[in-house]
């Protein structure tokens, strides 16, 4: 495990995957650090699963190289890669007992019988299913089956744990529980994990690093906070959370912020993470949660606060928070979410949305 600790556990160098003419993965460079939890996040068809399957050896890269612990593995067959795989549909062997399922990988690693027993039982205990060894997969619930699959994958002490949408087949409540379980287990074992999902909540809550993908290309790579708060482009900002996009033109710098003239005639002050020049076409990104919703009467007069008057045309109550759609005078609609206050606003009410400059980010308009 600890030879050559300088190498990342998994490394993609210029990896391209084409199916006939369809490009599934385009020029992927990515390092996965030892012991880290990395999530590939994106809509279906973005190439995230293909990338995972190339690490597993289930697909061959068309171009580029994949390294595990610094060793090029393009030509290493699947069964010699020492990886643990978790599938969306659990993929337990239906004709084998739970014990035999978990022991499967050990059998092909020529582990002694007595040790197999101890390790399988240990793994089943780890996933909180001790004593289930004699049952068949069909006798277990979906969540239990996925935990057995987890035991089967970790019992072989894999270099990398590959998970392909492991929670998608579970229902909502179970998913949350299973998510925490995977997270705890990964932290406890310190196993390098590559996790594929289209669910941003899973990605944000579990990952050390998120790689957002679209159309086979990496859109952004960074910690959950980075990709959420400092989305690199329109796609990432749109895919993660609820964002509003306001088009405009830069007027000029104002302290360490930038003033923008919006298309609807209004003005906006935004934090500037880079140098902008007057006349630059930009897109301001504002998260729906960052707005404060006030009635007309209570608007603060402050130059570094942006305010957008409008009328609520739609609202949906979602338990902890309320989602409002506010129509401005020029008919453009802003989506704002706010914690439930003593009195939620009603549809048709005139309100003002207020947001601080530091919560507005500018992206170049392409």
């Amino acid at each position, binding site marked *: 495990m600890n030879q050559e600790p300088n190498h990342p556990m998994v490394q993609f160098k210029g990896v391209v995957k084409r199916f006939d003419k369809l490009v599934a993965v385009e020029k992927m460079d990515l390092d996965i650090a030892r012991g880290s939890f990395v999530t590939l996040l994106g809509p279906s068809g973005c190439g995230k699963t293909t990338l995972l399957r190339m690490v*597993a*050896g289930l697909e061959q890269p068309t171009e580029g190289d994949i390294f595990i612990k610094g060793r090029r593995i393009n030509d290493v067959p*699947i069964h010699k890669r020492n990886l643990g*795989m978790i599938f969306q549909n659990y*993929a337990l062997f239906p004709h084998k007992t739970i014990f035999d399922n978990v022991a499967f*990988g050990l059998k*092909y690693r020529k582990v002694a019988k007595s040790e197999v027993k101890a390790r399988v039982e240990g793994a089943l205990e780890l996933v909180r299913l001790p004593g289930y060894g004699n049952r068949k997969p069909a006798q277990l619930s979906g969540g239990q089956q996925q935990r057995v699959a987890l035991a*089967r994958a970790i019992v072989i002490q894999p270099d990398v744990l590959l998970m392909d949408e492991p929670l998608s087949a579970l229902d909502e409540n179970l998913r949350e529980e299973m998510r925490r379980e995977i997270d705890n287990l990964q932290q406890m074992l310190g196993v390098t994990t590559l996790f594929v999902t289209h669910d941003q909540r899973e990605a944000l809550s579990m990952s050390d690093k998120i790689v957002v993908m679209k159309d086979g290309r990496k859109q952004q790579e960074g910690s959950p906070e980075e990709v959420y708060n400092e989305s690199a482009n329109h796609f990432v900002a749109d895919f993660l959370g609820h964002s509003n996009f306001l088009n405009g033109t830069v007027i000029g710098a104002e302290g360490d912020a930038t003033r923008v003239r919006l298309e609807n005639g209004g003005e906006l002050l935004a934090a500037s993470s880079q140098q902008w020049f007057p006349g630059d076409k930009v897109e301001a990104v504002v998260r729906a949660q960052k707005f404060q919703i006030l009635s007309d009467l209570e608007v603060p007069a402050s130059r570094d606060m942006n305010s957008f008057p409008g009328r609520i045309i739609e609202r949906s109550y979602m338990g902890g928070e309320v989602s409002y759609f506010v129509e401005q005078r020029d008919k453009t609609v802003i989506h704002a979410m706010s914690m439930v206050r003593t009195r939620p606003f009603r549809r048709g009410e005139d309100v003002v949305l207020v947001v601080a400059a530091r919560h507005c980010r500018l992206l170049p308009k392409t």
Partner: protein
Amino acid sequence: MQKSSWRPWALLAPSLTAVFLLLLVPLCFIVVYSFWLRAPTGADIAAFQLGNYKKFAADFFYPSILLRTIRVAFETVVLCLLMGYIPAYFFYRSKTRHKSVLLLLIMIPFWISFIIRTLSWINILGDTGLINHVLVRVGIISEPLNMLYNEGAVLMGLIQYLLPFMILNVYVSLEGIDKSLLEAARSLGCTEWQAFREVTLPLSLPGVSAGCLLVFVLTSGTYLPPMILGGPRNEMIANLIFKRVIGTLDWPFGSAISVVLLTLLIIIIYTYNRYLGINQIFKSLQ
């Protein structure tokens, strides 16, 4: 749910009626007939006596044909399995988008009359058939080889008739295997061949057993291949029944042989089901 419990029965009624009228009722006729007496004049006399069964068991002649039938059926099953599993597996692994075409090719023989297909073997294997003709012309042999009218020819006829049943049964069960199971096995350290042994083969057994049973039962009851391609020593039990019923018009004795065959098949299927546990395999797959 309670209210509509008659509905399944209403939907099943047409087929149940057909099974009852066309299968069960004639079957009862046969059982009843097997106890009747055949008068020397040729007329059948209603009676209840075991004479027909005694005649069957009187010497070893009839039982030996029954045993031969079972042996040939077993041989056919084994050969069909060996020859059928491989194409079925090929279809399953094939990545072509034209799988339906491949399956259609398997079905094509069914469009040609079974009799014609069986007879065509005479043109291939006969003394003046294709193979002998070519071999004699080329000069490899001077006298035509004797390839017809033996058990090999009968097996050939049976296999070409029954192979599609085996292939389709095995294929359907292979196709039902989740491909991620194979990927899981491979990722856990199996080579392609080990994954086949650990996953594909055991999970395809329901199809294999269904195919075997089907081939066995159909072989036991067929009389065309032995009649057309076999010699006098290759007669099977169905030929015997055919001769008694159509040839000598001895319906009571023909019925008795039929009942013996039927009883034997029921015992075999029952035992098979009991000990090989088809149902168990199916349950474990859910």
